[in-house]
């Protein structure tokens, strides 16, 4: 009985659906695969209700579907001409205060605003007028903050406070001049987790080290795991040619799509010019480049020699907490089966 009380049934665009009470209209519509555009809504953050593009019609009145809970018997229309026109005009208003520079925007191709402009085919806005111009750019090395592109959805403010617990940025000023910035408009100085980049729907917040390194369509994305701490965060590495230029993370991962500064910005070591590229063998006291054949032969010969003269326990191996399971398995197998010793350990087991 108790359970039944919490079940609600409503219709959306003529389709019936039952949901748990407290479910928003947006969530209910998504269950029906009805898509409603959003800009400020983010599934991992509390509702904001700021952008207003997710409006739907209930009893002839537009309500924001991301904040309005479904009610018993509700009849929702998600895309009447009335609603679609209002929506179009809201997007138009946002675009009227947006730099038209998608051609150099890092977010082009994955920008939620660009997507909506495309969907509603808004080439030049009807509502034309002054645009906010902000000369100052932030000097921090990680996050490019171009507040002229900010649509004030508030996602960054929420993620920084609600998820990251830092609160490095907030709204400042009011009216048309409302702006999101660190206190006193100082340069950002925070944990640089980049969560704000992850949630920003536009090019207002992007990864600074990635600027100009590759467009969306030229990028390969590969899912893998972060090489740093033991959290095992899921990464999506964005590679352009043979360079890893950016990182993101899937929303439904164990890390819920969030990363820390190391996972988000700390992977350029992969393409570091310092990487070891050839085997080195010490000759006359100095390490000199060698072929693999030479290195293998030399190594195997020396190990065999030591095993044969001093016994297998004169050899040991230290393995790595950064290598894969398979490599670690092979490593201990090598020492145990090929060398014949249990002298195997890894430095970081404590």
């Amino acid at each position: 009985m108790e359970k039944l009380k919490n079940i609600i049934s409503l219709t959306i665009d003529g389709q019936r659906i039952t949901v748990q009470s407290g479910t928003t209209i947006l969530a209910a519509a998504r269950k029906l695969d009805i898509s409603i555009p959003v800009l400020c809504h983010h599934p991992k953050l509390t509702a904001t209700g700021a952008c207003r593009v997710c409006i739907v019609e209930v009893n002839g009145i537009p309500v924001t579907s991301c904040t309005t809970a479904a009610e018993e018997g509700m009849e929702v229309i998600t895309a009447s001409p009335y609603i679609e026109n209002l929506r179009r005009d809201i997007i138009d208003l946002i675009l009227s205060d947006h730099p038209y520079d998608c051609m150099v925007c890092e977010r082009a191709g994955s920008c939620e605003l660009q997507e909506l402009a495309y969907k509603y085919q808004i080439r030049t806005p009807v509502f034309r007028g002054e645009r906010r111009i902000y000369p100052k750019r932030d000097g921090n090395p990680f996050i490019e903050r171009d507040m002229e592109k900010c649509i004030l959805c508030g996602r960054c403010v929420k993620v920084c406070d609600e998820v990251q617990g830092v609160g490095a940025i907030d709204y400042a000023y009011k009216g048309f001049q409302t702006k999101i910035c660190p206190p006193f408009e100082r340069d950002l100085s925070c944990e640089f987790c980049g969560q704000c980049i992850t949630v920003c729907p536009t090019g207002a917040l992007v990864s600074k080290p990635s600027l100009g390194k590759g467009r969306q369509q030229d990028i390969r994305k590969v899912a893998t795991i972060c090489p740093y701490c033991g959290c095992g965060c899921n990464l999506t590495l964005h590679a352009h040619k043979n360079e890893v230029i950016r990182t993101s993370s899937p929303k439904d991962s164990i890390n819920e799509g969030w990363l820390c500064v190391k996972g988000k910005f700390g992977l350029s070591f992969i393409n570091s010019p310092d990487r070891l590229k050839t085997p080195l063998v010490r000759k006359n006291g100095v390490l000199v480049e060698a072929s693999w054949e030479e290195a293998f032969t030399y190594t195997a010969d020396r190990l065999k020699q030591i095993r044969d003269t001093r016994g297998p326990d004169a050899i040991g191996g230290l393995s790595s907490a950064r290598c894969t399971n398979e490599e670690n398995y092979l490593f201990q197998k090598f020492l145990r089966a090929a060398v014949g010793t249990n002298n195997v350990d890894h430095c970081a087991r404590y």
Partner: protein
Amino acid sequence: MAGLATVFGSGAMTNSLAEIENNDALFVIGSNTKENHPIVALRMIKAVRKGAKLIIADPRRVPLVRFAHLWLQQRPGTDVALLNGMMHVILNDGLTDSAFIAERTEGFDENFRKNIGECTPESAEKITGVPKEKIVEAARIYARAERAGIYYTMGITQHSHGTDNVLSIANLALMTGNLGKESSGVNPLRGQNNVQGATDMGCLPNLFPGYQRVTVPAVRRKFEELWGVKLPEHEGLMANGMLDAALEGKLKALYIMGENPVLSDPDMSHTKKALSSLDFLVVQDIFMTETAALAHVVLPATSFAEKVGTFTNTERRVQRVRRVVDAPGLAMKDSHIIMELSGRMGYSMPYHHTEEVFQEIGKAWPAMAGISYSRLDEEGGLQWPCPTADHPGTPFLFKNGFPRGKAAFSMVQYTPSIEQPDAEYPFTLTTGRMLFQYHGGSMTRRVAPIEQVAGEPYIEINPEDARDLAVTNGTVVTVASRQGSLTVKAQVSARPGRGVVFIPFHFREAAANVLTSSKGLDPICRIPSLKVTAVRIEKT
């Protein structure tokens, strides 16, 4: 890990990261979670925002303290006293879970209770410096919570009595029945991406893959059969044992894959001396590390982005690593290098694909038998034990009992750390990580923006100590221990308490491990006491 294995019969995080947000109480001890496990910290913050109570025990005011209901600033190395004090309160207040104790544990006997009975909050206050009211409150919050989880890292283990610390933590959880259920447990947070995996895979001198003892004949026979070769019968040397053996001339060759002990092990000069005394040192790495520089042969390996395989994270979750880019130059996959060497040593390892290795792991260790690459691709990650192809994996352990039958209480008494401050070395140094850098820095220090914001070593000194030393922010000081000395800039900070200083160990130019001691090893785990070193500080 030996600690947990003793108590439960297996050593790993008992519960999952996702469960954290549903805890009612969290006890974080010896873990700077917000900096070292930032994503775990996010779950903790979420739990707090949902109403959970967070207790933090740490000698430093770590960033997570901002979210805590209670912060216990114990003196470094006094964790056992603190934990025993808390257990005293729980016993006294009758907050133990007697049903759990009776059914699922052993060793909760007269002696154990007597030992705890002697550890009053008053005596704990004397040792730890934590006011007894706080000890009482922490004990009550933890014990009264329906679901309470304990989280710890190196702050607990890297001590001359690290195993005692772990056993003590286990006692606390057992006493209150916080095991074998969701959102609770004893949870060591692993510091590196695949420590769990390296341990699981048997890169340990006493254990085969899957925590199977090398000294048990039946086990050995199984592996001999699997690998088709006769295997050694006695346990091997632990890492620091190998270094000692090298110095003694007993160990002649060392093969190091992807580690940099010169920087990450205690007492750098000792490590260097040991490695230099080897006849043959092979280092396989992606960068020319301090350790590689000492090698006879350096083999260029591949980074995680250039190979396929699996990592196992701190919550026992096996996940897929995939190739994104090509390795630079002639760099070769680690597995190929090992296979090639093995073949040339007369033992061929004819794998055609990495997954074949993975399948073999499943044969060697039933807990992973149910996991396959295709399942991982589809399901995204599986937590061992996962014995069969239709098993969903195990988010939390010990639901239906402990591998060793009943979990054992252990009597633990506080023993002071070996490194004690004295007139000559009046400060207690603790080492650790900072948010922006990682380990020996071979990766993060090559990332320009990271270097820009956090590229300099420092020593954190409490403002009052700084005043006494006439040191301000940026003053260069010499820090000397019984092992060595270094110079570094001071950062005056309220994070450490009086008499405690902190140096991150990422920086070769001020390598904290020049100072630490390789002597104060834990008697069981042989873990060095990286968290407590007596030092002296002087202005230069």
